[in-house]
């Protein structure tokens, strides 16, 4: 093999470089995101429940929001009847964020952890929060 040493050295350097994020983070555990639910509106709810169950909202809220969006705007149907027959007005700003008025402690906690950047807030106006 011509220039074997250089090639092997090159491969080793490349592997070390490419694997940097992995060995750099070994043993470091990022704190599990825990979105906060203690907003004044939620505290006053008799039954602390979202429009669907917690497990469903955790896994499917993005799909639910898409369905809400399409229903409200494209079909003009602005009432959501959940699996228990309860009715909710479809609105991100007026229904979701009415309870979850803590966007930084609720939405952003998991979205930052998962490095996802939903572009809801380029148009939708987030609730006013105290700067912490």
């Amino acid at each position: 093999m011509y220039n074997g040493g250089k090639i092997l050295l090159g491969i080793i350097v490349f592997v070390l470089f490419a694997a940097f994020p992995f060995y750099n983070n070994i043993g470091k555990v990022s704190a599990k995101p825990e979105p906060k639910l203690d907003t004044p509106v939620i505290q006053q709810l008799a039954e602390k429940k979202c429009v669907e169950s917690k497990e469903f909202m955790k896994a499917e809220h993005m799909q639910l929001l898409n369905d809400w969006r399409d229903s409200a705007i494209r079909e003009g149907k602005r009432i959501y009847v959940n699996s228990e027959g309860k009715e909710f007005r479809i609105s991100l700003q007026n229904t979701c964020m009415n309870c979850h008025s803590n966007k930084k402690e609720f939405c952003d906690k998991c979205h930052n952890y998962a490095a996802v950047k939903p572009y809801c807030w380029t148009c939708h106006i987030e609730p006013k929060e105290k700067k912490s």
Partner: protein
Amino acid sequence: MSMDRRQFLKIAGSSTFLATIGIGAGWILSKPGDFLEASQFSQTKELLNAKQWAMVVDTRKFKTEEDYKKVVDACHRIHNVPNFDNPKDEVKWIWTDTYKHAFPGQENEFMPEQMKHKPFVLLCNHCENPPCVRVCPTKATFKRKDGITMQDLHRCIGCRYCMAACPFGARSFNYRDPRPFIKEPNPEYPSRMIGVVEKCTFCEERLAKGQMPACVEASNGALVFGDIADPKSEIRKILETNYTIRRKAELGTRPSVYYILEIPTSDISGGDSNA
């Protein structure tokens, strides 16, 4: 190991069959549960419905500058319409312009001076045959069942075909991020982002709550809103008892905004003897 043609085909065929079943089963299992299927969507109880919403602008009732301002401000305030200082960047849902610009081709040189300079309230005409809907490549703008030409800004890609197609200049493009230019954002309504086209929606979000459009509410009866397909509606009675014109009706877009013009009776009373 040697394999003849027959054996090869057997193995290949059966493995393809099993793989197909596997993929099919996986697809069925990966579908979301029946959570969403148990739930459904419906219209609000207060919803005001129609076959074709329409508006009459009674220009006789617009007298002072304040009359125009309160109508425009009412709309722009609740819909978070930005106010850019540069007219090139202007975003507008409802605005005013002169007769010559509002009704081009119908102006003439010797018309009453007051008519020449009078501002006319202009807004999206919510055409029955809207050219903006026809050209939109993403169906972001579409015709609702109640006749409102609606936009889904989630889908708008900012190509501005609709702006080119609209003969009324009713559509505005967000050349800049509008957020910093909204003085008092209404927290109940979204704003827009840079790169989308926006216009009047006949306040469909207010109709869903059983309210009249914001401009109509602020106009003190100078704007009348109703279902033009309903012969018993107030708007039909107004159209039957008043002579109205529409903007550029000759283009065949069938606009739904009608204008009652002021006829200065004192000026023409001489020729109007048999009335």
